[in-house]
């Protein structure tokens, strides 16, 4: 029988929240084997295999169709899957793993309140310092699309995979775009979120991969799973 592959984060708080979310909907997911072994079972519905993956790899596996379903952050899906609407379908937003992708500038920038200000600042900055205003982020695509839509030119993205809030102090960037939940780290690093600087309000979500093999059996399993959990079946 062709089985449906469900991808979940391999560890951490997010995994616990995912398991609890399924549990509330009558699907039991249990880790099996030794404590550190990445294996588990799904009960409450037949024909589902559990695949434990690093949370950041789930979007890639979904895009490639190597798993049928997966839970990951909307931010990661939107950032890492070009044309994500055409390649995955969101079944449910899960209400946890909330994180906002925001633009933050130094608190002392009293002349900058909104994204609109950034365009003029970028032009001035380039004229005086000879470089384009640098935005540190790991969300290149989302930030670029956002700034283009808002008419900001003359900036440049510098890649930052972690400790992004520190880049301004380290003089490797002038401002940042990063995930924040409470804003505490931003404040501690003398940064402030722009009033209209919310790029994406993200949370964990259950996605279905359009490119996965959807035979009759997998579809039947998905239908059962959806009706058991009270979700609308996605058009795939």
């Amino acid at each position, binding site marked *: 029988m062709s089985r449906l592959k469900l991808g979940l984060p391999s560890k951490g708080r997010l995994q616990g929240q995912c398991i609890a979310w399924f549990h509330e909907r009558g699907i039991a997911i249990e880790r099996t084997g030794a404590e550190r072994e990445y294996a588990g079972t799904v009960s409450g519905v037949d024909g589902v295999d559990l695949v434990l993956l690093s949370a950041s790899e789930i979007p890639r596996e979904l895009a490639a169709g190597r798993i049928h379903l997966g839970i990951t952050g909307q931010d990661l899906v939107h950032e890492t899957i070009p044309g994500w609407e055409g390649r995955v379908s969101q079944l449910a937003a899960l209400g946890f793993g909330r994180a906002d992708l925001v633009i933050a500038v130094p608190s002392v920038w009293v002349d900058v309140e909104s994204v609109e200000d950034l365009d003029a600042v970028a*032009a001035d900055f380039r004229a005086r310092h000879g470089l*384009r205003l640098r935005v540190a982020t790991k969300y290149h695509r989302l930030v*670029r699309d956002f700034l283009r839509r808002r*008419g900001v030119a003359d*900036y440049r993205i510098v890649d930052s995979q972690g400790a992004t809030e520190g880049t*301004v102090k380290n003089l490797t*960037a002038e401002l940042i775009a990063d995930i924040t939940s409470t804003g505490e780290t931003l404040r501690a690093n003398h940064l402030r979120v722009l009033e209209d600087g919310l790029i994406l309000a993200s949370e964990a979500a259950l996605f279905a991969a359009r490119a996965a093999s959807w035979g009759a059996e997998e579809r039947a399993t998905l239908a059962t799973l959806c009706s058991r959990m009270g979700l609308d079946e996605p058009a795939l």
Partner: protein
Amino acid sequence: MLTARAYLPDGRLGAGLARLEAETARILTAYGAAGATVVEPEALQPADVLLDLYGEDIRARAYVTQDPVAGEMMLRPDFTVPVVRLHMAHGAAPARYAYCGPVWRAQEPGSRRPNEYLQAGFELFDAGDPAEADAEVFALMAGLVGETGSEVATGDMGILAAVVDGLETAPHRRAALRRHLWRPEAFRRLLRRFGAGHEEATAARATLLAAAERGAEAVGELIAWAGEPVGLRDAEDITARALRLAGEAATPPLTEAQVAALDEVLSVSGPSAAALARLRGLAPDMPGLKGACDRVEARLEALARRGIDAGALPFSTSFGRTTLEYYDGFVFGLSAPGRPDLPPLAQGGRYDHVTAVLGGGAGIPAVGAIIRPEALIAAQGGAA
């Protein structure tokens, strides 16, 4: 299919390839007859140069790679920048260049546009009569695509630029509009913002403006109060902008008449002779527009001397605002009628400022155009 290339299902071997080679040879021969030297720029270009010219958006369109020694590189998304760099390295003397080779552009998922296609181009660096140079390049391209590319579109980025430069308002507003000449949406947003009835300043902005009116010292206090300074953009930058914002707040908004006049210029579209007449009609109210109109007229005359029915060529002020970002004067495209599936078979324009930007100040006026040989053959072959 491995034999497929842009617009041509069998362009990579046998008869299909032979036809393409014959076509590019025909084009390069014509460029040679026009006095061009053949050049072959590098496919891998330093990312910095392209980023400086096009901005961050180019990253979404070009293939970016990392060289362990040279740093970030891009596969050339077009030839203009590589040819200009090559030209500037030789000193900015008048020159004519021809080239033919692939360019690479990343496409969005679902797009049917090719990510690799050929460009056969001609670039003319010449400080002489710009009208003559524009007309020469246009005539060369029109002759080469012939009836297959008889759908003509022309424009002139210099018109809008001249109107903006002549706009009676604060210099920073003109500078902002200039920056966004090629981005119609951002341009419109700016016009709205500079226009009458713009919303009241927020409380924070009002505080800043009040401080700025008291002077730089008051702004400095505001900055000190706001927190610990971090980053390269320092108090001097912030104060300078705050003072400018105060100046801006004191400048009267653009009048409805000014905005309407800009809209009218942007909406001019029709046969060149009629379009020019309409622009001339608007010129008395707009400093700068007359000079730009004179340049259009000189070009039309130069085109007519080459046997082209110049007055009838379709002209639109807005043409070239979205796709041809570095052009700053004459722009044109030649497309195949009834083939919306194909891009323009030839397109080009004037890009005087590019040579100055890439040449670190020293520049030379330039005009150039490319033919897409694959699209040209596809169009000659009839409907796909």
